[in-house]
């Protein structure tokens, strides 16, 4: 199955792109997508303990199920305002 991965701020800089398409095996969770991504780009692991995640633009947990066509976002600590 295919998912869209969205990365923001410094995570986007580290990956070189904020918009990626990745194929992962079903059944998958956010964790599956993250492991696949960081296997390819280990530098992103720096954010493992501090990031938030979202599925289809709703906050989610690492264990949340991910389905074909979903958008999975990894968010560094926020700094709005």
């Amino acid at each position: 199955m295919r998912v869209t991965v969205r990365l923001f701020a410094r995570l986007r800089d580290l990956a070189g792109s904020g918009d990626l398409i990745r194929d992962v095996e079903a059944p998958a969770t956010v964790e599956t997508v993250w492991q696949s991504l960081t296997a390819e780009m280990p530098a992103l692991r720096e954010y493992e303990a501090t990031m938030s995640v979202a599925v289809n633009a709703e906050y989610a947990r690492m264990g949340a199920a991910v389905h074909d066509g979903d958008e999975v976002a990894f968010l560094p600590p926020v700094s709005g305002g």
Partner: protein
Amino acid sequence: MPLAAVTRDPLDLQTLARDLANDSSGDGAVATFTGLVRNHNKGRTVHFLEYEAYEPLAVRAFERIVNEILETWPAVRVGMQHRIGRLEIGEASIIIVAASPHRGDAFAACRYAIERVKQIVPIWKREHFEGGDVWLEGATADPDDEQAKLAAYGIACA
């Protein structure tokens, strides 16, 4: 512009206040907050800021904050708009308006809103300063973190 919005356009407090004021005959107070881009941070001379957002989730996070405010202060109406893109020194990055029958609730809700924005809204700023640039990172966003919510409430009602 909607009362909860992320935009690339300059922010206009008067317009937001007017939009919020529809049907406001019961209001006795309007409190506002404007966040500005300042020219210094942590000893650095700041040239400008660059904001980015995960827009659909940012708008949902704003709406969540509005709902939290309604749970605590049922008579308060609140609007909040955040600007993204390149912002120069002195420009407004965020505006918040809270209207209420009484000033206490308006002030508290306005303060609560900005504290929650800094905790849970997926927006980031990159500071371009004398000699470089850096993404600023504050809180790990977790809208279900009750401790963070209580901390924001504590600051709002101090």
